[in-house]
């Protein structure tokens, strides 16, 4: 039996130093913008899907159900591949970044729809009635009374969605977006120092997510200012 030898750990400090900025830069100019843009479009789509699900029109409910089911029932990696590599067969060509935005937005739209729907339903029925009795219409009650209260409930789950999204952007590397992880991959192609470079990438993702969780805490305490439990 071959002896198991734990290799001597030597860290290539110059490589670590020189590779850090290109990897971080990939994060700053691709990963973060990709996550933010996709989240904004994704939330808009999720809001629409949530409203369709809540509508009394059967067809609207059906459309939202099918959409959510497809998004949740298929891997994001496959969705990305269909949009970037598949759609050109139909004559629809998109840039890698735009393709990633489309796929990630659609993904968020499917997952966050149920979160938003549940948070809207969590607002007591009496709030609707209070809005109606002062003369508001559906849209006014929804926008001014229900959504601000639903927002408070939905911040923790939507923050999770966003943090997942930041990490999921790494899948965009498969469609040639030179984001954080792809930058690390590119450098390994010449240096072969996989452990170092992928650990660096992991570290930067972790820092991003750590900062986001701090921001999440701030938003939560701000939205909690009108609730008795603090």
């Amino acid at each position, binding site marked *: 039996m071959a002896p198991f030898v734990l290799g001597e750990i030597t860290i290539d400090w110059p490589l670590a130093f020189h590779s850090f900025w290109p990897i971080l830069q990939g994060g700053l100019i691709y990963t973060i913008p990709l996550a933010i843009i996709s989240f904004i479009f994704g939330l808009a789509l999720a809001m629409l899907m949530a409203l369709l699900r809540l509508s009394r029109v059967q067809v609207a409910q059906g459309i939202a159900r099918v959409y959510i089911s497809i998004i949740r029932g298929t891997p994001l990696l496959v969705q990305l591949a269909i949009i970037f590599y598949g759609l050109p067969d139909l004559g629809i060509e998109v840039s890698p970044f735009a393709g990633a935005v489309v796929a990630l937005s659609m993904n968020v739209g499917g997952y966050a729809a149920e979160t938003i729907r549940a948070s809207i339903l969590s607002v007591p029925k*009496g709030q609707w*009635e209070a809005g109606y*009795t*002062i003369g*508001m*219409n559906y849209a006014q009650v929804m926008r*001014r009374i229900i959504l601000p209260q639903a927002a408070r409930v939905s911040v923790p789950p939507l923050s999770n969605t966003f943090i997942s999204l930041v990490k999921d952007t790494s899948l965009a590397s498969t469609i040639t977006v030179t984001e954080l992880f792809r930058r690390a991959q590119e450098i390994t192609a010449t240096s072969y120092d996989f452990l170092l470079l992928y650990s660096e990438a992991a570290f930067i993702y972790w820092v991003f997510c750590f900062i986001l969780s701090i921001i999440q805490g701030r938003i939560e305490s701000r939205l909690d200012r*009108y609730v008795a439990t603090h």
Partner: protein
Amino acid sequence: MLLQAMDIHKSFGESRILKGVDLTLDEGKVLVIIGPSGSGKTTLLRSLNLLELPEQGTLEINGKHVDFSKRLSKKETRDIRNQSAMVFQSHNLFPHKTVLENVIEGPVIVQKIPKDRAIDEAREILDQVGLIDYQNQYPFQLSGGQQQRVGIARAVALKPKLLLFDEPTSALDPELVSDVLKVMKDLATKGWTMVIVTHELKFAQEVADKVIFVDQGVISEEGTPDQLFQHPQHERTRRFLSRILQRT
């Protein structure tokens, strides 16, 4: 006549809650609705603000008319709903808005009154209900009685022709009830037209011009407070009144 409801029918699924109720009220008068729980009195009150949609009957408030057997247009719904405002048992204040914001929400957003003017008027009303010092607090910072008085202020701020009260003191601790009743008495004195569902018989005796006893989905007895409370005609009314009186 400010309010006229005719032959109101309402069911929830199989159970018939209102089985043909007629109701009239003149401007400036106070009507108190009493009755056992499940009698349909709250459903009747909510129907006046279209929070329940009866399947049959007509409703006229301040000249606006709807026929429940037809599908109501959005405009019809809005027009008749804007004639009245509801004070809820569980106040239903907007928890994310301050006391002042709760009161000006309707005037500013729905009635498009300039915000400055709405704030002035809201402060005046909050002063009347004794809560001017709480205008910048959030509802959770107030006691139940204070919350309910904000609920009343919110309804009054809309200047509706008709104020509706759905058991406004039932959810309150006993020592907080009198402040709310005092505010309501004050409104009655000022000439507001009011329909009140309540179990507070002493209060009803003092402010009501007319009392109706709703039982099993119909008005089984109506009259002045004296007629109904001192000389009830029906055995069921007598039994109900004695039960309430024993409880208090």
